[in-house]
């Protein structure tokens, strides 16, 4: 459950104060698959950073699974990113010189999980790359790399998967495969938030949140387009 109220975030760019988010309120229930769309400069990256606990809002409140994370310490935010959120990036962002398996088990190692290896293998099996687990990123295709990134995102079994233009660097066929993977994960109960400017990708999601100039348009607080009744366990 994501509950953000009246988020404000400002930047100073060349002496001018830019309000990237201006009074943004969003509610995303567990198990939803949501697209956040908007042109560049609309504030969607800023929103994603705050939703992903990479950044803190200047004002407003943000509750994640009942916990107000707006004012937590840097270390506690790192823990929340580690446990509750899985990131998938446009440019994959796998670590070089580490095998697929080592990349996937890394989030668990930061937790000190003793079953890291077994869980990482299971996650790679979920994305269909069990036979490539000892390959390093530069030995994998773009689609395979993004699958490894998805495996890394789900290995801690987070409630939310936050994807930033996940198909932006892929051809349309592999892009569709990745989206299908997200739909599978959504069916298993993960909340999926996809940040994109591609209408084709956005249309695959059950609900869209549009941002323009730091405001949410056509998305009043609490009005979920497709309310999900079943709660994720």
């Amino acid at each position, binding site marked *: 459950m994501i509950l953000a109220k009246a988020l404000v975030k400002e930047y100073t760019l060349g002496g001018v104060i830019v309000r990237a988010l201006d009074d943004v309120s969003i509610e995303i229930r567990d198990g939803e698959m949501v697209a956040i769309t908007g042109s560049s400069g609309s504030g969607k990256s800023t929103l994603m*950073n705050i939703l992903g606990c*990479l950044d803190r809002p200047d004002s407003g409140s943000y509750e994640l699974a009942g916990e107000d994370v707006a004012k937590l310490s*840097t270390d506690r935010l790192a823990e929340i*990113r580690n446990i509750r959120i899985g*990131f998938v990036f446009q440019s994959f962002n796998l670590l070089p010189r580490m095998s697929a398996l080592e990349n996937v088990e890394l989030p668990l190692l930061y*937790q000190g999980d*003793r079953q890291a290896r077994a869980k990482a293998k299971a996650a790679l099996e979920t994305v269909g790359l069990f036979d490539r687990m000892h390959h390093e990123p530069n030995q994998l295709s773009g689609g395979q790399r993004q699958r490894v990134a998805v495996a*890394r995102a789900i290995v801690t079994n987070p409630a939310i998967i936050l994807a930033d233009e996940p198909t932006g660097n892929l051809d349309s066929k592999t892009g569709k495969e990745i989206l299908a993977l997200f739909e599978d994960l959504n069916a298993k109960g993960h909340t999926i938030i996809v940040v994109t400017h591609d209408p084709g990708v956005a249309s695959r999601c059950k609900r869209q949140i549009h941002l323009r100039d730091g405001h949410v348009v056509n998305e009043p607080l609490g009005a979920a387009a497709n309310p999900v009744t079943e709660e994720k366990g």
Partner: protein
Amino acid sequence: MLFWTIVKVAFKSLAANKLRSFLAMLGIIIGVGAVISMMAIGSGAQAQVLARFSAMGTNLLVIRPGQRGSGGVMSGTQLNLKLDDADAMLKEAEGIGAVAPVVSGSSQVKYLSRNTRTNVLGSSTTYFTIRTFEIDKGRTFTEAEVDRHARVAVIGPVTATNLFGEDDAVGEIIKVKGINFQVIGVMKSKGDQGYFNPDDQVIVPYTTAMKQLFGLDYLREIDIQAADEEKLADVQESVKQLLRKRHRLQADTPDDFSIQNQAELLEARSSATKTFGILLGSVGAISLLVGGIGIMNIMLVTVTERTREIGVRKAIGAKNRHILLQFLIEAMIMSAVGGVIGVGVGVGAAHVVGDVMALQEVVETFSVILALTFSVGVGIFFGFYPACRASHLDPIEALRYE
């Protein structure tokens, strides 16, 4: 688990930039190499000095007559050290293990048609134990032979070769100053001492030497072995007081004899070696400092290059201390690898220099551990700032970094 992954990644990233890593480590390699090789050579030289001193006996006091003359003008050695003095020491001074009176002179020694000029030394049976001479063939002379002024001689291995070549010397008769002596023993070699070769001398009972060979009533020196090495200084003081009393010296008169203490000489030598070591240590410390700066420089470059990686690690849940630890371990591994290579280079260099200087270098475990500890310490110290910088990067900016 996390630790080993970090170590593995650190080694891989070092291997990925081989030349750069090597150049960064070069300062450490040179520093450690210099310290290890110099310490090995220093220890080797010290061991050689020690061996020479212990060949002469370590719990040894040597009493020699003082210099004659006054007002700084020395006009020769006094003839005031007597056999009675030696006897008195054994009876009256405390803590004495053995005493050997010594007389000596240079003389022509003949065997058949062969002759050699060598040092002829007269002493007691205890001389061999005090001066740690060992017998190779035959035997030393006995108390009885000393008492009856026997004409027997124990000769050094060099003298034996000079007179007898490869033949057995024991039992043969040699002529010293025209007097026949029977060779009863040949000593084991102790090696040339530079200023004096203990392997080239003829040792006879002091009674025979004083009465029959040289006609002397004074001694060249008295050698004293302390019963307990720890109490050498006490023995020295006790002997000094005894001699002053026997020579009837007033309280304000300087000694008319000198006492040489082997332990003191040894101490002087080892303190010189210590100074040498401190000097080398500071050279090494400066090299390590420079090496550390090299590592810091390369770590700063690495952190900048891997900004994006740091962002990713933070996004997936790495805390600041995880990032700090990772870069600290990488710096530490770089300096430790440099240290290990440096030890290898140092051992090799010491071997080469040891060969050139004709001494056996001694690589001590202590110096290796010290050098490695220091190089790892340098890695931690100079790696801390870059690692700190990495750990405080903002995850969003780091992720955006191209």
